């Protein structure tokens, strides 16, 4: 490992240690009715992962999230590329996308439930509407702001449209698109979980909601811990790739 990689590894280790200490201190203040301490939560999570019922919920969430992410990427990339290559259409539609990005989509959950019913389709729809917008916006901007020199080069070389997209457009826009995908990942995850909290009978979000109802602090903490561990590790990997892609472009 290079010196820089070591440094960031040490940074992450310090962050994790600081969070664990803060958690333990908060527990000391808040007491056992409010939360569970770190060690107990890790143990309980390890125990949960061996039970079939919990794995059922986990699997339901994983399936919904996978579908939602796939759809968010498909819609996001399709919208982003289409609008990015048509300047006028992007001027018309981009502000609508940005407005949609900023509205509290959580208020739409009853509409989604009425339209899709309880269950997998509603969760997937909820995850997708959260996740596709950043992918679309980042892709759109990346494609639209592509270096004019590259366009001229493609023109001079008389590249076919397919060739142009494959060997110029995608490589040039990839770093920005990847940033959009990274943000889309987080939002799709939270969207799917929110969808499960409000309209499902299975999944981690549902489990969380029942735990909240029953004041089952240990379960709440264990489920949050699992989600945080998953989100943090994937985000960290995505950030590393993101930085690499952006550096390569310089």
């Amino acid at each position, binding site marked *: 490992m290079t010196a820089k990689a070591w*440094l960031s590894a040490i*940074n992450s280790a310090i962050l994790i240690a600081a969070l664990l200490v803060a958690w333990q201190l908060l527990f000391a203040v808040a007491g056992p009715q409010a939360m569970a301490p770190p060690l107990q939560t890790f143990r309980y999570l390890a125990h949960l992962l061996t039970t079939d019922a919990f794995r059922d919920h986990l699997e339901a969430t994983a399936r919904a999230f996978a579908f939602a992410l796939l759809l968010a990427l498909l819609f996001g990339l399709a919208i982003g590329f289409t609008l990015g290559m048509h300047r006028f259409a992007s001027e018309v539609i981009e502000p609508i996308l940005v407005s949609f990005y900023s509205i509290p989509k959580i208020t739409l959950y009853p509409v989604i439930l009425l339209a899709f019913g309880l269950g997998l389709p509603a969760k997937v729809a909820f995850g997708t509407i959260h996740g596709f917008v950043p992918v679309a916006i980042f892709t759109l901007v990346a494609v639209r702001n592509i270096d004019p020199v590259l366009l001229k080069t493609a023109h001079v070389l008389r590249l076919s449209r397919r060739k142009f997209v494959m060997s110029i457009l995608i490589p040039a826009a990839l770093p920005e698109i990847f940033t959009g995908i990274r943000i889309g990942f987080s939002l799709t995850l939270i969207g799917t979980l929110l969808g499960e909290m409000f309209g499902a009978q299975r999944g981690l979000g549902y489990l969380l909601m029942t735990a909240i109802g029953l004041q089952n602090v240990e379960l709440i903490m264990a489920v949050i811990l699992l989600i945080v561990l998953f989100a943090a590790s994937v985000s960290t990997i995505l950030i590393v790739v993101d930085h690499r892609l952006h550096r390569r472009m310089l």
Partner: protein
Amino acid sequence: MNRAARYRILLVAAAIVLIELLCRAGVIDRLTMQPPSEMVRDLVVLLASGSMNGAMLKTLTNVAIACVLAVAAGIAFGVMIHGHRAVRNGLEPLFATYYAIPIYAFYPLLIILFGLGDAPQILIGFMLAVVAMIVNTLNGLDRVPRVLMKTARIYRLGPVATARKITLPSAAPYLLTGVKFAVAYAFIGVIGAEFIMSRTGIGYEISFAYNNFDNKTMYPLIILILIISILINSTLSRWEALLMQRRSRT
């Protein structure tokens, strides 16, 4: 008004008319959605009756408090850690993961810590909004041109004068972007919290109406929230564009 804006309005109007027609033709049944024209009529009736004034006041006040706190704390924290590379590098994975965590899951904990009043809801809104404000403050401070800071040093401006005359005006558009996100997240936080466990506020009224199949109340309230958040967002966006223009002129 430019051509793109005209097309945009036309597009949105066409979408609304399409939904209206689908509803009237019975393709979308009434249990799922009423025609948009009736939603607007119901909204007017609802607002005129004043039955929702209490809920609206409650929600908007809580959103405002959460937002103001988040903006103040976010700017303060951003300014504090801006110069410290190591701290920022350490916190980056946390910021990237933050929005994938269902903060609502901490709601029961907050209720135990702060009681059943408005504080837990405000805190949820605050927790969601503050990180966006921190990230955008850091971004804004990063973009203050070096030469301006050198000028401040040459003129021997004190820290307060530097902040007032140089840093703030230069970073203002980015701070405003942060405020925009803070408003959006404060809405999401407060309304989501009201959905889950509250007995007051628009979020509660929406979920109450949903559980009673009362679309005549539910849809107008959803539309109301969307209109308010879009209005605030577009006002801030316009201001942001203005500041950006002024910044690039000087």
